[in-house]
């Protein structure tokens, strides 16, 4: 990068970012410290009772969901990039909609659908006889199904982008070498998509191992659920921290895998003349088959759940069973999320700014520390803050301050990812050009820097805000007494299987998440 006259590193900004980084990195360090200094007896007790089961459950769930999302994601991506059928572009967009569905919402809808006496069982008995059984939602199969339907868009999006950027020459040269179409797909296309697919799967696994909402509603014992139970049921923070450490390691592996494969995929996209791959048309029957498949996947993952939520909401409203405190819950959610998003953007700015303008070991380390939240699943972060505040600042414990802190740790990374590129396009040259044209420092900031970064910052704020709106585990563990948010209400009602009561809040969360999703996707879309 071209660097003209170097201004000295601003001390005040450095201190702010150093403090932020320390505050954000602290909980992770604390959890590690607690786990590593725990009494060996705690380790051996957990090793003999919980850990094997949790490892097995978390591992098999990750594996099952990977397999499911791989099949769904890759096949869908191939259909929309290599075939032509009516409404293709609409489907192409619609297939990301399941990402707007928080896992706990999908889990609660499927608790109803697959439950005893539920619609799936009725249909199945009508088809296969009165004694036929469907698998229970509270099982490995149920959890795998729900998580697969919720996360396949990650694989779909990355594979689709890779297929669109695919250098068709590879396929053509393979065919010139005498390979059939199936051969080309298996020997050339799939291997070249591997980095994109693995990156997608790593995201999926990261999501699965840190998910709390679905596994808790489906009562499927994984690490996150176990940490939550240790903290709430047994008040055993040491055991909780041991399990947390394992969970963090688990998540870290897949986060690093995702980063690594993303870089490789950049390297795999060798230069070349870009040619749009020819799309095949399958005729009326083929189109029908494709549309049927897409409809089934999207219906199961988004369409049907939304229809049910609307139905329940309408009937709840008609029966007047909507909680009178409902408006209060909305207000709580908005207040918390708004405060957290604003604070995160404010704290993130010096971090990203210093790292891009004065890149040094220290400033980059600060920025990296802020990304710690990625490997701190909700319950773990909550546990760390619980311990931290109860020891250091007990008078703040149980206020929304702790909760906002938890949100910042958790969602600042996502915000930073949007803010960093925005800040990077403001090069020193631009500001120097403004200064040479007679603008003051403040004028430069107002007329050059701010207009350039505004879009990225607003996007970051919206992203963090909406993530906070649907945050569940930290809110459950850290909220002040009686201070319920929409997400908490959905979870509480759904745990009791009050499907109708949970619906209005769930529907509201889904609707509010949609803009964030579009924001996220449209960025990826252009890049593809």
């Amino acid at each position, binding site marked *: 990068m071209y660097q003209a006259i170097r201004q000295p590193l601003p001390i005040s900004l450095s201190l702010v970012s150093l403090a932020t980084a320390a505050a954000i990195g602290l909980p992770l360090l604390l959890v590690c410290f607690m786990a590593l200094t725990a009494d060996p007896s705690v380790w051996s007790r957990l090793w003999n009772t919980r850990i094997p089961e949790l490892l097995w459950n978390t591992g098999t769930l990750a594996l099952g969901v990977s397999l499911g999302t791989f099949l769904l994601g890759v096949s869908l991506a191939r259909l929309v990039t290599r075939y032509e059928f009516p409404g293709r572009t609409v489907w192409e967009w619609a297939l990301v909609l399941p990402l707007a569905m928080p896992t706990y919402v999908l889990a609660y809808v499927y608790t109803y659908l697959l439950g005893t006496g539920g619609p799936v069982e009725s249909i199945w008995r009508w088809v296969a006889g009165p004694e036929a059984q469907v698998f229970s939602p509270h099982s490995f199969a149920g959890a795998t199904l729900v998580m697969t339907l919720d996360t396949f868009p990650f694989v779909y999006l990355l594979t689709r982008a890779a297929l669109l950027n695919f250098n068709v*020459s590879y396929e*053509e040269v393979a*065919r*010139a*070498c*005498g390979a059939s179409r199936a051969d080309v797909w298996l020997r050339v296309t799939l291997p*070249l998509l591997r980095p994109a697919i693995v990156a997608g799967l790593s995201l999926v696994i990261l999501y699965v191992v840190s998910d709390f909402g679905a596994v808790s509603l489906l009562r499927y014992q994984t690490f996150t659920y176990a940490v939550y139970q240790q903290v709430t049921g047994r008040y055993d923070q040491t055991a909780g921290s041991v399990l947390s450490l394992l969970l963090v390691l688990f998540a870290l592996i897949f986060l690093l895998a995702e980063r690594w494969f993303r870089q490789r995929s950049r390297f795999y996209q*060798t230069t070349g*003349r870009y040619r749009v791959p020819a799309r095949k048309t399958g005729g009326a029957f083929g189109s029908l088959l494709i549309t049927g498949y897409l409809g089934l996947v999207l219906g199961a993952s988004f369409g049907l759940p939304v229809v049910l939520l609307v139905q329940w909401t309408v009937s709840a409203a008609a029966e007047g069973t909507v909680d009178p405190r409902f408006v209060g819950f909305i207000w709580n959610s908005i207040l918390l999320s708004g405060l957290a998003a604003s604070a995160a953007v404010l704290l993130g700015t010096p971090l990203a700014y210093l790292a891009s303008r004065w890149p040094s070991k220290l400033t980059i380390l600060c920025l990296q520390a802020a990304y710690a939240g990625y490997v701190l699943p909700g319950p773990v972060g909550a546990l760390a803050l619980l311990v931290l505040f109860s020891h250091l600042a007990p008078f703040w414990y149980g206020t929304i301050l702790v909760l906002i802190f938890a949100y910042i740790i958790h969602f600042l990374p996502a915000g930073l990812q949007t803010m960093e590129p925005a800040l990077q396009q403001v090069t020193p040259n631009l500001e120097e050009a403004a200064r040479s044209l007679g603008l003051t420092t403040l004028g430069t900031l107002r007329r050059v820097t701010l207009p350039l970064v505004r879009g990225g910052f607003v996007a970051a704020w919206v992203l963090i805000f909406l993530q906070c709106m649907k945050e569940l585990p930290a809110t459950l563990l850290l909220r002040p007494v009686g201070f319920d948010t929409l997400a908490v209400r959905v979870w509480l009602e759904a745990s009791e299987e009050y499907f109708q009561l949970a619906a209005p809040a769930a529907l509201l969360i889904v609707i509010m998440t949609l803009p964030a999703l579009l924001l996220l996707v449209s960025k990826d879309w252009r890049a593809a």
Partner: protein
Amino acid sequence: MVLELRKVSCAYEKGRPAIADVSLSAREGEILCLLGPSGCGKTTTLRVIAGFEPVATGEVYLEGRLVSSPDLLTPTEARRVGMVFQEYALFPHLRVAENIAFGLRHLTADQRDAQVQTMIAMVGLTGLERRFPHELSGGQQQRVALARALAQKPVVLLLDEPFSNLDPDMTGRMREDLHNLLMHTKTTAVLVTHDHDEAFAMADRIAVLNNGRVEQFDTPEAIYHTPATPFVADFVGQADFIPGLVQNGKVVTEIGEFPNQAGFQGGTKVVVMIRPDDVHIAPQEQCSARILARQFRGSENLYTVGLPSGHVVHSSETSTSVYPVGTPVELQIIATHTVLFEQPESPRGSGGTLAFTPRRGHA
């Protein structure tokens, strides 16, 4: 004929230049060049031969077998064509030896290894078998792409601008190596290029394409010395067009008289194509032609000479003949053959293109 295209046309689609009535053929072992500016349809023609593009009219034959017609499109994998792309398209997930072996699945493992070794030795890559494509230089990558295409003993080898991704000083050697390799293996090849030097150096015959049509299909010498159209004349080398009038069986121009070899009628307005190597200049005080500019090119000096009418001609002189700009010079035309084109009615075609009616004059 190993390869024959009969009046092939391709429908226009976005991003793919159409071609119309393209007829070409290649004998066994012949090297054919498709030469033309970008967007002229030369790559489309190559892709038609490979079977990547269907034809709207006409036929393509490989070894006498019909492979493309409006009703037939033999898939690429059944054509046995070797393909070398501009960017080589080496499979990044496979090693050099695996890339070369890609099309040899029908052989036993032993045969395959033997064939791969033969190819590696032939293109001079011994020792690099275990490398991945990104660990190779541009020239080495091109050799792997060649070896991969030749390993399956293709009916015809198709090369799409194979030298455009190489350093200029590398290109000369690679051209020579490729030429030797093709001669040695008696491979029929079709090479696409926009560089006439490359086409002259490599080709047995050249097809010059413009706007999707073949303007001329001939030997490199004929293309250069007796271009069929002003476009060809201009595209394959420096050419000046001097207007003249047919009088008494001669073409009279301001730089002298030329034989009316094309047999134009008396009174016809024509232009004479002059190449710099046909023009010799000598300083001469009384002359009205003057040197406007000199470009030193190492092995020659290229002079731009202004005529009293405002037209210019170029002259190629030896490296040591240096005259200052402004020198009055006498022009000597030493052409063994004269190329004439009829002059258009309007002063010049629009958009800077040369709009002449093609007519050919032979020596």
